[in-house]
């Protein structure tokens, strides 16, 4: 238990936190894009986009922190993961380019508005799909020889990764629907309420399918989830999941505003922790451990000093920004 060991584990936790924060925050604003074609009118689409316009940029910054943080403290993991997931990463980046600019461009043109609507939908969906595929590819394992990626260029594309890709699209759509429900009144609110229930059911089906399939990707995962004593440690996960599912469906049934959104987020947090349990102590399964991939102690320490001050500060002003734009959206209020 020397200091390097502990620092690298603290950092693994911090990177996981950044990625999870990204998933739940950008998850709902990507979800808003995924649901764009389901809006009945142009006005509803305006409202949906305005519900995330002031905050999407901050949400996406967590993705930059996930990538930048990995580069800083686990450079080897960053190097092999980016090589292995070359194509889904590039596709995700291009998709994020499209949807990111749509936030501004959409308001600058009438004739091309439909094009940027399509870019917002297509970009959001593609980004979500690629993130899910990347996750699945990581779970199924990445081949490494002598600090280099040694697999093929299409290893990331398997039935399992397609399943995880679609699962993430559906899950983000649920986050988006419950977010818009929370932020709006009137027609668009009801439209999202109608969509939320089937999306919730679909999300659960996908969580179940991925959960059942995952342990067969790697015997370590199987042992951890189904054999003693791993089973006892992982038992709280399904229990918490059941509670979140109960809250989600009762919240939807009773017409609550906030509960469905928070419960959907909880589904993601719990699933994410479940994946983390499968991975531990690796950062890139099946063979690259957190300790092996860590940067030298001097890097970990230097980065940790500022991070421990800056992350709470960021959380504080991010919370403030959300607070400023709290409550139901006034559909006529926008700066455009």
């Amino acid at each position: 238990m020397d200091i390097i060991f502990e620092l690298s584990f603290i950092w693994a936790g911090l990177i996981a936190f950044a990625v999870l924060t990204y998933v739940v925050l950008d998850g709902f604003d990507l979800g808003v894009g995924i649901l764009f074609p389901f809006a009945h009118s142009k006005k509803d689409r305006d409202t949906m986009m305005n519900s995330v316009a002031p905050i999407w940029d901050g949400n996406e910054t967590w993705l930059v922190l996930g990538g930048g943080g990995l580069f800083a403290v686990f450079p080897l993991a960053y190097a092999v993961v980016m090589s292995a997931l070359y194509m889904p990463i590039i596709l995700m980046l291009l998709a994020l380019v499209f949807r990111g600019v749509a936030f501004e461009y959409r308001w600058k043109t009438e004739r091309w508005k439909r094009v940027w609507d399509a870019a917002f939908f297509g970009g959001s969906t593609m980004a979500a799909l690629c993130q899910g595929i990347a996750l699945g590819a990581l779970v199924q394992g990445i081949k490494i020889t002598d600090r280099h990626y040694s697999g093929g260029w299409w290893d990331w594309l398997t039935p399992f990764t397609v399943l995880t890709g679609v699962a993430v699209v559906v899950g983000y759509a649920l986050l988006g629907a419950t977010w818009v429900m929370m932020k709006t009144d009137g027609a668009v609110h009801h439209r999202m309420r109608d969509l939320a229930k089937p999306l919730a059911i679909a999300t659960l089906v996908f969580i179940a399918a991925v959960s059942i399939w995952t342990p067969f990707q790697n015997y370590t995962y199987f042992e951890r989830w189904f054999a003693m004593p791993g089973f006892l440690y992982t038992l709280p996960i399904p229990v918490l999941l059941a509670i979140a599912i109960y809250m989600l469906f009762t919240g939807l049934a009773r017409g609550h505003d906030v509960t469905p959104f928070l419960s959907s987020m909880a589904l993601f947090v719990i699933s994410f922790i479940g994946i983390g349990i499968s991975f531990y102590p690796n950062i890139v399964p099946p063979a690259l451990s957190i300790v092996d991939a860590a940067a030298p102690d001097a890097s970990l320490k230097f980065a940790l000093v500022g991070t421990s001050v800056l992350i709470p500060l960021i959380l504080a002003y991010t919370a403030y920004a959300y607070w400023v734009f709290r409550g139901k959206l006034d559909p006529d209020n926008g700066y455009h």
Partner: protein
Amino acid sequence: MLSSFAAETLARFQFAFTVSFHIIFPAFSIGLASFLAVLNALWLWTGDAVYRTVFDYWKKIFAVAFGMGVVSGIVMSYQFGTNWSEYADKTGPVLGPLMAYEVLSAFFLEAGFLGIMLFGREKVGNGLHMFATAMVAGGTLMSATWILSVNSWMQTPAGFSINDVGQFVPEDWWAIIFNPSFPYRLTHMVLAAYLTTAFVVAGVAGWHLLKDRNNPATRTMFSMAMWMALIVTPLQIGAGDAHGINTLEHQPVKIMAMEGHYDSHPDGAPLILFGIPNPAEKRIDYAIEIPKLSSLILEHDLNAPLKGLDTVPDDQEPPVAIVFFSFRVMVGIGFAMLGIGLWGGIQRWRGRLYDTTWLHRATVVMGPMGFVAVLAGWITTEVGRQPYTVYGLLRTSESLGPVAAPAVAASLISFIVVYFFVFGAGTFYIMRMMGKHPGTARLGLRDGPVRAAGITPLQQTHNAHPAE
């Protein structure tokens, strides 16, 4: 072998392409964010509605430019890994933490307060809105500081050792961050961003002055931009000179390429104003030279000896022609900016700043030239560093990851198609916004008459309009 060469070439082109597109937007948004903060402060301080009008005009342009900067920047943060994973593994321990600090101290700050700056004035009040605007501006400067520290370290590495798997290991963070070329590079880049923005603002104002000389918002923009041009251009030329002397000390080969010194000059080197590098014969064809001036500029001594590329092995020589030309483009634009700045100063002194049509035309032409200069300067410094990614230590060819040429080619083509479509559209929207009249000052902060740049036009009757 052939395919690894092809993969390297394609990957280099891809990086150059994506980073060239990206650098345009920060260069603009650093300057524009500070401009907006100053305008907002002036509005709050003086209550003069003209500043609010100008603020609102540029705020919309800033939002679009910033959006393009964000999305092209996300691409950059992942590109070190996709094509350059060997570089990422080796430099990660030193450069990764600096980039992580850029994200933590700058990107979040910008993103967190951007929403409030754009959408939140009515919700948070003028004071907090000013604070948010200042935070966005501060974030852009903080971001520039970190990323230039990273870039400078790649040019003049310091404060590290190398471990048994070939990674750079940090030894002294102070020496890493404040590496020898960092202060010069940061100053040069931030001034470049301010100048670029000043000339864009001057160009837009010049365009509108040509149509209407009496609009107070246009006059204010033009006046502020011309002050910036007059003051910052000489500072920039001084900063560039100091940067050049620093480069001679730490990257002499780059200076040889910039200056076109194929031969050593033991008793005073001439300044080659122009010519055509001939890499095969290792000389500058058709050179127009001023004797001894290069030694005077670089060493402040007419007869100081300067070494040439003849002292450098071929495999350590950067592509001379690219560096030679891009440097001349940058310097040429710099001196043209100086000329416009001085011209504007003279016309202002004579009381004819808003009436000199030819000056307005010239600023329209010069409007986009800052971007050209930034790109040319960036090419000079980055190509001049070749064949290394970390100067003298890590070759570009050793930085490449296990990429296949077809994969890099496919992604390169995708980037080119998407970038031209997306950023072409964005540039079109920005140009269209710039083509729109800035409008008239119509919002007073306080009750009372509107003072608009010293004149009191008829528009002041519009003061009665309610706040947006």
